């Protein structure tokens, strides 16, 4: 038996349609799960008999902005991230902004036997590789006492 329920009047259907349209409008286009908080760049230091290898992971640095300095046994790495945002034309909705922008700094105390002239750095795939040459150990010297 068919009968009209008081709730399914045409007006109510319109309201449901409106609600559905509103939900589709407010629905995000990409779900990415729990947000990720920015973290300090990851570093790995490997010790070899004649050199040290330091690898710092920092994506999207402008190669010209990377500065590596050695001062009083402390290695300082500074880099700046290029703005990689797409060109702002028309309406752009930002759904997520977790990536870090700005300056990256890392300081590392080095052993005494690093040769300041023997440091080379290379930036590839968002990883900065620094090779630090160690000086050959000096043979112990006997000092004559008068």
């Amino acid at each position, binding site marked *: 038996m068919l009968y009209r329920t008081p709730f399914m009047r045409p007006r109510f259907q319109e309201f449901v349609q409106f609600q559905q349209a509103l939900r589709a409008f407010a629905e995000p*286009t*990409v*779900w990415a799960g729990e947000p*990720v908080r920015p973290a300090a760049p990851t570093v790995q230091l490997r010790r070899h008999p004649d050199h040290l290898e330091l690898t710092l992971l920092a*994506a*999207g640095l402008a190669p010209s902005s990377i500065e590596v300095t050695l001062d009083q046994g402390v290695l300082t790495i500074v880099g700046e991230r290029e703005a990689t945002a*797409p060109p702002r034309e028309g309406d752009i909705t930002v759904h997520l902004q977790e990536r870090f922008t700005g300056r990256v700094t890392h300081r590392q105390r080095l052993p005494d036997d690093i040769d300041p002239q023997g440091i080379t750095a290379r930036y590839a*795939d968002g*990883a900065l*590789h620094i090779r630090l040459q160690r000086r050959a150990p000096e043979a112990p010297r006997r000092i004559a006492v008068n």
Partner: protein
Amino acid sequence: MNQATTSCCPQPAATAQNASTAALPVHTVRMPVDVQEDAHGVTLLADMPGVKREDLRLQVEGDALRIEGDVSAFDASADGTTTRYSRAFTLGKQLDATQVAAELSQGVLRVRIPKAASAQARRINVTVN
């Protein structure tokens, strides 16, 4: 589920990488992303430093997009683990998951997902006689 699986990356290289690092435990990290939407689609930027192009895997299955990449910049044998970036996304119905384009530059992955033709606002020219 009868959904099309598309992949934009060379699969043999990816599986070879898996085979070589299979012995080491994997440390999985969820990478930070930026997601921006414009009139024609969505641009997703993900930070994946230390990942080479051949170690990057993008997989679209139905409305799910998974981005994975193994860090090769670190010497895995030194730490005893392989670091892997991995994050899954669910794409809205208005996006065309079959047209995903990706590019990796200095550890920043840029993924472009256009909107389905039906979801894009169309301007209809009216001619008046």
